């Protein structure tokens, strides 16, 4: 097979396989006639009716708000705590037992506690819960990123008289940024999961709530539409973060390419 035909075949497969899977799903659901597995076309019609955009403001916006706030708080705290911990060995010695404990704790085990402790099933509880568990990937990656900085860079900064906050802003933060972004990507996908969990466990609005209500009332098509929506949300949010990362780290990748030559 020549290179050209191979290339064409690969592109054809890249398009054909997903289409094939979607077609197989539709055909199977038409054939099965199982009320638990409504036709793909029914799900998509339901998706459009619910989410584009009649229920969007009522349920999707609160969910996005919780993800955004929780994720935002986690990133700010993770970087703010991670930089000093990355720079200080004793800070790490004192903090690591706590970090290791909480990052190993399965989040749903704290869901009932978060409600008792915060006296809330509203945004206070939901945002705190999301923020708490999204903190660890950002925090651990920031610590690692700061620890991995080339000592020459720090020495150079020192000999140029850069100190204190200026050194952190000009040297430490940019050098750790690629790894901070790696942590942010993990955190963001975690935020979507935490959003579903908190809304699934006592709430009055949000996508997770719709999922729960449609399950309890055996409305299968809306339930499937909510599952599809959560999948789309996860995918789109991840994509947006990758776009931001490309923009913010453009200098970095360019620098690496130049250094590699």
């Amino acid at each position, binding site marked *: 097979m020549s290179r050209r035909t191979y290339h064409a075949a690969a592109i054809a497969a890249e398009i054909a*396989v997903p289409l094939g899977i979607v077609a197989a799903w539709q055909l199977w659901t038409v054939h099965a006639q199982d009320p*638990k597995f409504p036709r793909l076309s029914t799900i998509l019609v339901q998706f459009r009716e619910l989410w584009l955009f009649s229920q969007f403001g009522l349920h999707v916006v609160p969910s996005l708000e919780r993800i955004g706030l929780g994720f935002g708080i986690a990133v700010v705290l993770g970087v703010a705590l991670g930089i000093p911990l990355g720079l200080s060995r004793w800070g790490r010695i004192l903090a690591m037992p706590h970090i290791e404990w909480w990052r190993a704790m399965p989040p749903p085990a704290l869901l009932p506690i978060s409600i008792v402790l915060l006296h809330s099933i509203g945004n206070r509880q939901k945002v705190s819960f999301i923020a708490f568990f999204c903190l660890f990937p950002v925090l651990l990656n920031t610590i690692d990123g700061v620890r991995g900085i080339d000592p020459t860079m720090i020495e150079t900064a020192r000999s140029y008289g850069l100190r204190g906050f200026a050194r952190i802003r000009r040297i430490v933060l940019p050098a750790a940024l690629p790894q901070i972004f790696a942590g942010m990507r993990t955190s963001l996908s975690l935020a979507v999961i935490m959003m579903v969990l908190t809304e699934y466990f006592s709430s009055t609005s949000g996508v997770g709530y719709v999922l729960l209500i449609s399950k309890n009332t055996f409305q299968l098509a809306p339930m499937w539409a909510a599952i599809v929506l959560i999948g789309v949300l996860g995918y789109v949010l991840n994509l947006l973060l990758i776009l931001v990362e490309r923009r913010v780290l453009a200098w970095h990748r360019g620098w690496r390419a130049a250094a590699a030559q």
Partner: protein
Amino acid sequence: MSASGVASARSVSEETRFTAGAIGARVAPLLAALASVAVFLAVWELVSRRGLISEQDLPAMSTTFRELWSMMHTRDFWSAFVETVRGWALGLGIATALAVPIGIVLGSSQFALRAFRVPVEFLRPIPSAALIPLLFLTLGTTLKSEVFLATFGAFWPLLVQTIYGVRDVDPVALDTARSFGVGRFERLYRIKLPSAIPYIATGLRISSAVSLILAFTAELFMGTGGLGQIMNVSESFGLTEQVYALALATGFLGLAIYVAFAAIERRALRWHPSQRLEAS
């Protein structure tokens, strides 16, 4: 924060190693870490006893540990514990049995990887928690639901890591083997798999945590037997002390799994010095 930064952190660690002697340099951090944990536990005790947060909302540390201790003398606790571990192990095991071979196939063939890239990229970010209601209605509150959920969650990190690992194989080693007439299967077994093992170990560490989270989630939300299910019952009866004790038990289980798989990962990395890529 001292202005001396990373360089000082490094030189401090060097200094302590040489001046205070090997034993002192090792013991001091350990003592400090233990003291840090002790302070946390003391603060927890005081916050609750002094009523900063009422004991109804936050049982004191001593109360919680005592509750856990008395639960550990009941049969129900241990049968729930075993059920949670069973769900976790089955989920992780099935996910590994599926993800590693599929990852090797997708990682070995550029064509297969491109063909399945879009479905993988779409399915991977689907939060497995979204599948709970569907599983509730189809498989019901059975072990099958729990294992399916845990498997689904644990599958993706392992798949991605395996693909990365197989693709990262040294092309020179592969070409050398080929020119020595080493067959396709033996190349896979002798070269691709060993070079992918550190990546698979990292995937296993990530997936072992995910599998536990989802096993517990299934129990909490669907009522499949296990620690999550008794936590749900305790919560609905307002038995806050039990809820805290169960969270503690789950935390210890999570920590034990994390420590074990981090150790496996370190071992896998020890004989393979190349840098790894943590995907998720």
